[in-house]
């Protein structure tokens, strides 16, 4: 027994050494800011393995990272040397020019990073992606079996299934959805609008163009869905939607791949619920072929306002934090890792199906954050039946245009 413990300790020390060795010859400080969920904690831990006499590695992982990362990178020298971001949040950092192109560092030290993980904007690598995420169908096998229906592949089928579940008296409000007024609601509109084949802007400009047939169809479909949701849907974010699902109150929902693991584990729900949860691919809508969802990546960047030594140390540490070495039995299921040696678990099947179905990435446009905010503020009135779809879309467009003028995107 003792011998085994010693061997274990030695192997761990050795593997730690190996990890250290792959960090190369670096000096300076590495300071990480990012969102807080298990996969990112794993990355930060992997980066911390590079800490040594000449290198300090600290991390600040918080759900409020978007509120602090820009300010934390703006100083000179910057407080953080790297920000872990997603395809929407990199825009704010790009707009203010606080992250540096990584081409030199990649040429010198990053030959082993898969080319497909490099986020290239205007010919310059600005970030390195390490995981993918998307919203897709999650459903209860037992409930669908009871009504004798296959898992829906379109939103129209989902509505039909929901009606049958309600008619049979199995559940009063069988559909779940993160429709909380604000960011979540806007995200659902973006999904559904893309599914209807809509374009958000007049080509090549920042002029918004959502008050059209696709926009109205999008809102009509969202309203039809809310008819089968808990009446409090405008207060439900992803957490609350998951809680409703775990409580056995809903059977069909469009949910983030990164949150499926929590649903399928044996905590927080009865056996009949968690053992019957399954994931499907993304759904299409209105006879379209583009799935009504968006693809997301999470990746890391390097601050512009920091010394070259710090930048190199940060690059090496983050590369180590997203290297095949971080994958083990515990971390494998935390995300859809875009890392060599990753074996997909059943919880991640939905994200893979979404990528395969040809879903579009979330729009990476400098002014799209403003439209997202405007959508989140102006769609609730329509869903509550206080105004028409056209009015809600016109309000959104007006709110966006006002904001875009203030930010200098429109004149």
């Amino acid at each position, binding site marked *: 027994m003792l011998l085994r413990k010693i061997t274990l300790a030695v192997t761990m020390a050795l593997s730690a050494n190996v990890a250290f060795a792959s960090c190369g010859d670096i000096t300076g400080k590495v300071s990480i800011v990012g969102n807080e969920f298990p996969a990112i904690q794993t990355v930060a831990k992997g980066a911390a393995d590079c800490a040594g006499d000449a290198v300090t590695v600290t991390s600040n992982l918080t759900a409020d990272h978007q509120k602090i990362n820009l300010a934390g990178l703006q100083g000179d020298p910057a407080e953080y040397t790297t920000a872990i971001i997603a395809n929407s949040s990199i825009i704010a950092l790009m707009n203010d020019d606080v992250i540096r192109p990584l081409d030199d560092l990649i040429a010198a030290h990053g030959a082993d990073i898969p080319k497909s993980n490099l986020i290239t904007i205007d010919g310059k690598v600005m970030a390195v992606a390490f995981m993918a995420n998307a919203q897709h169908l999650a459903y209860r096998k037992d409930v669908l079996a009871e009504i004798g229906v296959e898992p829906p592949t379109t939103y129209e089928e989902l509505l039909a299934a929901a009606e049958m579940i309600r008619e049979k008296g199995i559940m009063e409000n069988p559909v779940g959805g993160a429709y909380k007024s604000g960011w979540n609601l806007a995200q659902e509109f973006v999904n559904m609008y893309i599914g209807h084949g809509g374009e958000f802007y007049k080509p090549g400009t920042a002029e918004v163009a959502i008050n059209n047939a696709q926009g109205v169809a999008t809102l009509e479909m969202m309203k039809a869905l809310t008819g089968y949701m808990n009446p*409090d849907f405008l207060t439900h974010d992803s957490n609350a939607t998951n809680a409703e699902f775990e409580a056995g109150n809903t059977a069909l929902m469009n949910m983030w791949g990164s949150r499926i693991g929590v649903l399928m584990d044996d905590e927080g729900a009865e056996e009949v619920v968690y053992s019957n949860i399954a994931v499907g691919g993304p759904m299409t809508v209105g006879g379209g072929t583009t799935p009504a969802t968006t693809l997301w990546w999470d990746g890391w960047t390097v601050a512009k306002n920091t010394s070259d030594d710090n930048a190199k140390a940060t690059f090496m540490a983050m590369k180590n934090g997203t290297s095949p070495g971080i994958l083990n039995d515990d971390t494998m299921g935390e995300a859809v890792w875009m890392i060599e040696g990753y074996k997909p678990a059943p919880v991640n099947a939905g994200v893979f199906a979404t990528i395969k179905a040809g879903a579009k*990435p979330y729009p990476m*446009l400098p*002014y799209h954050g403003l439209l997202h905010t405007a959508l989140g503020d102006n769609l609730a009135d329509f869903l509550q039946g206080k105004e028409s779809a056209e009015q809600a879309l016109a309000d959104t467009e007006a709110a966006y245009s006002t904001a875009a003028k203030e930010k200098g995107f429109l004149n």
Partner: protein
Amino acid sequence: MKHKTFLWFVLPSSLAMLLFIFFPIVSVLIQSVHVDTEQVIKEVKNCGPFGCETITAVDQEATQALKRDNPLGRFAGLSTYFDRRHLALDEVRAAWGNASGAGDFFSQLLNLPFYKAMSFTLAYTFIVTPLVIIFGFIIAVAVNGAAKWVRGPLIFFSLLPMLVTPLVGSLIIFWMVDARGVIGAALQYVAGDPNLSVKASTPLTWVMLMVYGVWHSAPFAFIVYYAGLQSVNKDTLESAMIDGASRWEQIRYVIIPHLLPLTTFIALMQLMDNFRVFEPIVSFSAEAHATSLSWAIYNDLGGETRQLSSAAATSVLTILGICILLLPVLVRTWRDFNHK
């Protein structure tokens, strides 16, 4: 006190106010009359794990050059104040012109973010403030009339709502009024409507926010009144009793006049606080039903693209609003002061 002594006495706090209140307000004022420099947009090729596409992006070199020339941004005068998100002059004028009647005009007005926020802010301020004063007074009189040995525990329990952190207090109530919570289920039973949901109805959400506001602030009025009650002139009270005044008459003619200056103080504090209502809207997730000026500021700063000028303009409008609200009370205090 000599003028010189007085000056030295208030100097530290005046300096602190200048540094931490006056200068920041000036900076907000300057921010509110500027907007960002023009962003130069160009088309770029963007590649990632999900393939390549041509998108628009900010031309950093050109935009940074513009920013260097105008570090404050472009001077915009009062245009941010008059745009659709604030006073919305053009939209209000258009609504005035094309509205079919007063009702239609108001519904068009309340569709504009500033007036929507204002309608809840004002309703909240003018309903919660008097209720806080009334409830605070009733609790104070009741506690003061209770036997000495229960007063300690009574005071403690009456103060609890104020001791609980606003965010935590409102979250607890939020869960209780949920359709499956204690209060929510009880309401469904009383109303005989199994689909009744407080969170899904705008009027009920407003009521919930206001009940929370009264619950949270009444202890403040209570403790001020309770302190005031300790200094009521016992002789006056006794002579009133000898003259045969009932308990109500004692309260009406002795206690209320005695506590009137305190009422001015509480009204002042509460008007200011309630006009800046914010935490309950966030923790009750009530954005879809009720917004306030403070929430609008938070929302402008919380998005992925921060809108500083808009937030600054709303801040200045909030300060102006509070000044207008407090004007009657301040004028009254000034008159009383001169009168003496």
